[in-house]
């Protein structure tokens, strides 16, 4: 490690980042803080050859999340996958991209299948084996919601990770209850009096998860993979029901450039539109502070699903989206202030 950095460590919290990106690269952090992927003995749970689109946020998020869980459990992991892009692009018969014990059953039942796997491990005395369930926002916030709530309420020993790309991508980009207002999807087309998704709809699954009083809830994005890994690692150190909601841009569904996936995730955070926080037993314990606040329009503009907001003059709905970001900033205390970095 760079000696200069080492010297700085005890006295200075990370306040510097790569110019223009506001990210902290591996080079700038201590060994223990480096990503799982940077280590030679990484697990690599999802190998190359899968069929995800170029720049798929979900593929990236899943790879880091599952790898972190693999490392945290010494490989003693069983993954349960809901139907959706992640399942389809990783297992085109007869190939599989998974280097981990992996099972897929249905679209809406991953949490319940995981409950069953955990029960089997308990009854067989396989204490070391942990269970990791994952699905898209549709499989989590909509069709799988009943099973998920049941798993939370029973406090089953399962970590559930939702990869939120804000729509049903696998079936061709339809609206889910995680689709933001104004976003164009195949079922909220940009026609009629109020083009795109309707304002005042949708739900916050992290908040609902918190309302179950489960030991750990967190949100994360693919813009900060260290943070995602840390949260997964932390979640694996806890027993009981845990939930991590990961914001994962989808170039295809959002009409964004493949090379903009990380940038979009970062802009979502820096605008306050996607709050990154942690909660324990229903109480928020901390949030990731905005490093460089931007107006929400900067996040929206590179995405074709919001293009209709920027045709002609300033659409008043941009201000309404800004209000959502502002509310998040207040609610989750997203602005850096003294003693809080």
């Amino acid at each position, binding site marked *: 490690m760079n000696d200069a950095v080492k010297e700085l460590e005890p006295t200075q919290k990370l306040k510097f980042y790569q110019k223009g990106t506001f990210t902290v690269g591996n080079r700038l952090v201590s060994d223990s803080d480096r990503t799982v992927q940077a280590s030679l003995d990484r697990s690599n749970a999802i190998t190359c050859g899968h069929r995800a689109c170029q720049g798929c946020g979900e593929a990236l998020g899943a790879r880091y999340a599952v790898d972190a869980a693999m490392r945290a459990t010494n*490989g*003693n*992991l*069983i993954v*349960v*996958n809901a139907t959706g892009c992640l*399942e*389809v692009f990783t*297992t*085109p*018969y*007869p190939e*599989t991209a*998974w*280097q*981990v*014990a*992996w*099972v*897929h*059953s*249905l679209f*809406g*039942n991953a949490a*319940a*299948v*995981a*409950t*069953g*796997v*955990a*029960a*089997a*491990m*308990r*009854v*067989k005395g396989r204490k070391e*084996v942990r269970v990791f369930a994952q699905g898209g926002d549709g499989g989590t916030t909509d069709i799988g919601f*009943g*099973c998920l*709530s*049941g798993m939370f*309420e*029973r406090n089953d020993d399962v970590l559930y990770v939702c990869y939120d790309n804000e729509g049903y991508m696998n079936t061709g980009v339809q609206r889910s209850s995680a689709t933001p207002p104004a976003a164009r999807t195949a079922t909220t087309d940009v026609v009629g009096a109020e083009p795109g998704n309707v304002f005042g709809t949708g739900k916050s699954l992290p908040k609902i998860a918190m309302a179950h009083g489960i030991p750990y809830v967190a949100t994360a994005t693919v813009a900060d993979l260290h943070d995602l890994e840390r949260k997964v690692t932390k979640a694996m150190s806890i027993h009981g029901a845990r939930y991590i909601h990961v914001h994962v841009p989808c170039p295809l569904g959002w009409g964004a450039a493949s090379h903009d996936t990380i940038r979009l995730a970062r802009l979502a955070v820096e605008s306050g539109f996607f709050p990154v926080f942690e909660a324990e037993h229903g109480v928020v314990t901390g949030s990731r502070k905005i490093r460089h606040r931007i107006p929400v329009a900067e996040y929206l503009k590179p995405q074709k699903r919001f293009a209709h907001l920027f045709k002609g003059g300033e659409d008043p709905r941009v201000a309404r989206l800004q209000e959502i970001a502002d509310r998040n900033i207040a609610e989750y205390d997203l602005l850096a202030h003294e003693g809080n970095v």
Partner: protein
Amino acid sequence: MLKQVEGSISTAEAIGLCRPEVICAYPITPQTHIVEGLGRMVRSGELKNCEFINVESEFGALSACIGSSAAGARTYTATSSQGLLFMAEAVYNASGMGLPIVMTLGTRAIGAPINIWNDHSDAMSMRDAGWMQLFAETNQESVDLHIQAFRLAEAVSMPVMVCVDGFILTHAVERVDVPAQAEVDAFLPPYDPVQVVDPREPISIGAMVGPDAFTEVKYLQNYKQNLALKLIPDLASDFKKRFGRDSGGLLRTYRTEDAEMVVVAMGSVNGTIKDTIDEMRADGFSIGLVTLVSYRPFPTEELRNALKGRKHVVVVDKSFAIGMGGQLAADVDHALRNVDGAPHALSCIAGLGGRPITRASLRELFRKARKEPWEGMLFLDLNQKVVATEIEHMGSMRRSGPIAENLLRRLSVTPAAE
């Protein structure tokens, strides 16, 4: 051990003797007492090494079972009626994945109109879902079939549904011989899965399969049911050797040796039919019975052998495909297809939504089958008058109202006894 006990309780005890490792179910009448019984056994420590999971729905229940079975645990669930429909997607999934889950189906009608009483509509709704389906005639057979079901399921790695008539069996107090643990242990070895999700040998289960291999996967599901056709009689004879009872098998015959007319039925109604046959035989009426135990796999050949050469075949269905006919009748027709001089199969729909099937009505039915055979479905004890009145009412005005409520109102004015 012989005891006088409610069917649900003896069934629960039998399941306990099979040493399930995970039990997950959601309450629905008339299945409740079985699951409550098992829950009590797990909590009290009577049933050791077993996880009992309370879930939020039947879909969640069978999904959790899919997880535990895929992870190598002997797994059990139970449901009825609406519950089976609520888990439908997972029903197909469990068989498609080849998971040897055992389910008790406390058979019950399907709404609307909502009805908690017995018929076979629920079982029939999943007859093509890839599960094996065994029908119990008595509570003793329910006990015995469950013990055989785990061995059958695990032998071919496919799920088995044991269909036990709701209320008629589940809530009836009868004399039942519940075997000893050692006897069951000797009959049913510990579960040795053919596939398991385990980090020690990481594999993927549940991959996407396209046109290149889907037909083959389905073919092999059917192949396994064909294996079961051979295995089920073997299990029944092994069971008889060890436990001294005739239980299970593909089908059983009763007084068919010289019978001109043979009745085909499934489940508890067979008891009433046997009594009726005894009475009619005493009057010189040549009649016998085939009790079908295994509906899936369907024992086409065995049934054909039991029916060919008869003059009349009467199929008593406790459900029917609306717009088509009795499901069992259709399958019996299938068995008789291409048989030279095949008997005319007559279809009777009986006992829907818990309507009692009486000996008097059956006697009349069997006589009619000989004297004036009918085409299509005959609804046993249908209230013709109420139906005719409602048909007339529907034709007389556009807003004729809800049929179920209209019938109830009319029946309360003119009591059913009329």
